[in-house]
């Protein structure tokens, strides 16, 4: 028989075995002590006396012994397991993906080696993730010089082909920018950047001012609408990067002659409305999860943008939402 796969199950099994063995031994002992033989059991006159003897010397002591033993053992096990459950709850509740550790000292002595091994494993996982990020940032960094050379060489060429190549270089440049930002939002560096008061309306104005020349050069308009804004605690550059990403996406899908509107229309929220088709919640979810699923095929050139925006919002306790009817994407910050 396969032993039950829980400690309580195993203990129940062991205690039952102990009780059985104890009962058998007691029976033997009493049988010898009182000279009870199997013949007595078939003797109708002797039977009540035998039953009485057995009750008094086997069943009652066994019950008296087994009941408190079972109760105490179950209690001890519950007590021992409680810290493990507590540790599990803490891990589940942890918001960060990084730096989560089990508090080994709070666990029973026997569970500590296991907890320490888990912590050592988490150390290695964190180190590997940090290395990947540093690597991504390094690659992005190293790519900039050859890409600059390419871009400057292209500037010396004329014609439609050169123009198409320039668009491609532009896409590569955006991807590199996104990789750099991504490497920084995940890294503990974002945690180290102390939150400062950020005026969302002010920030939206800065981003619009920054993006307007490129938008106008492409024959598109960009404007800021709404006076509502709020001062939140956050990382200004990260939030600006998130909004820039949304505006870049919006400009890409908006035909020439139309307008991209950045909205500061509700306290603690910023939105970007474009001339594209709007983005369904399902599609947004897919785009946001692209990083997690390591699916890097990009058909519409959205790159990693929305996944980055979602991460920046998550790091601020907020979220990225879509409103397809209004053709807008909205950054929602918490607690305003």
């Amino acid at each position, binding site marked *: 028989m396969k032993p039950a796969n829980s400690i309580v199950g195993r203990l129940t099994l062991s205690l039952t075995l102990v009780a059985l063995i104890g009962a058998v031994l007691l029976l033997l002992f009493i049988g010898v002590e009182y000279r009870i033989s199997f013949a007595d059991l078939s003797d109708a006159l002797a039977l009540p006396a035998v039953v009485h003897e057995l009750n008094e010397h086997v069943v009652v002591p066994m019950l008296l012994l087994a009941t408190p033993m079972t109760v105490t053992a179950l209690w001890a096990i519950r007590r021992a397991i409680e810290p493990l459950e507590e540790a599990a709850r803490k891990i589940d509740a942890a918001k960060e993906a990084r730096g989560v550790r089990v508090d080994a000292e709070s666990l029973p002595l026997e569970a500590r080696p296991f907890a320490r091994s888990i912590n050592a494993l988490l150390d290695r996982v964190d180190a590997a993730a940090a290395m990947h990020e540093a690597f991504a940032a390094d690659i992005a960094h190293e790519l900039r010089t050859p890409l*600059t050379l390419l871009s400057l060489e292209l500037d010396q060429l004329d014609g439609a082909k050169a123009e198409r190549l320039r668009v491609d270089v532009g896409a590569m440049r955006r991807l590199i920018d996104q990789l750099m930002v991504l490497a920084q939002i995940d890294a503990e560096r974002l945690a180290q950047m102390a939150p400062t008061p950020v005026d969302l309306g002010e920030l939206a104005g800065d981003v619009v001012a920054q993006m307007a020349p490129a938008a106008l050069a492409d*024959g598109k308009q960009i*404007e800021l609408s709404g006076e509502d804004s709020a001062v939140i605690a956050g990382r200004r550059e990260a939030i600006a990067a998130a909004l820039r990403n949304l505006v870049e996406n919006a400009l890409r899908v908006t035909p020439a002659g139309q307008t991209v509107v950045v909205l500061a229309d509700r306290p603690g929220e910023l939105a970007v409305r474009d001339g594209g088709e709007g983005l369904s919640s399902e599609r947004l979810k897919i785009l946001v999860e692209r990083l997690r699923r390591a699916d890097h095929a990009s058909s519409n050139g959205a790159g990693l943008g929305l996944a980055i925006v979602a991460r920046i919002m998550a790091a601020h306790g907020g979220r990225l939402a879509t409103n397809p009817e209004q053709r807008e994407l909205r950054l929602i910050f918490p607690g305003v």
Partner: protein
Amino acid sequence: MARLLVIEDNERLATLIAEGLAGLGYRSDIAHSLADADAALAVAAFDALVLDLGLPDGDGLDWLRARQPGGGPPALILTARGGLEDRVAGLDAGADDYLVKPFSVEELAARLRALLRRPGRRAEPVLKVGAIRYDTVSRSASVGGRPLDLARREADLLELLLRRAGQVVRRRSIEDALYRFDEAVTPNALEAIVSRLRRKLDEAGAVGQLHTVRGVGYLLRETEPLS
């Protein structure tokens, strides 16, 4: 012709930048290290520096911080960093502007033009953007050689937009520049001035150069939008 010092250790990159800028009317000398740059600055005067950050004999930012606290030609930094918080570091160190790699020659030239137009740096009495010319001494403007008749605030606004051509000038900074702090500014006052200036520019032939970025500010573009 403005004279630039390009401080960049990648020789091909330095040459491409110099060649590209030569086509747009800038004369560039090249320094491949900070030592070269110091030597060049000792013997010649430059209108602006184009500075790469990672140089073989040191960090460009440290060099800039040590070299010119407040003085010297304006510096435009070329950086491969471009992360979240590196952006501001360059400007704190005394750089006047920065450009994240990769960039095109047009972008670089546009930034340099803006740098050279900054007041107090290089005495440039005449501002030119496209067909628009503005003489800051006589405070007179012309489009394609024909003089414009501008009221005082229209002229102030034009000068402000010309100095920062290609960039959005925020409403608030225009209002601050155009009105004394004891003057009450009605919300529509600035819009009225802008629309008068735009009409005059349009009539004179500088069509579509003055743009409104609604909710944010105004922008004078160097060229007309491609269409």
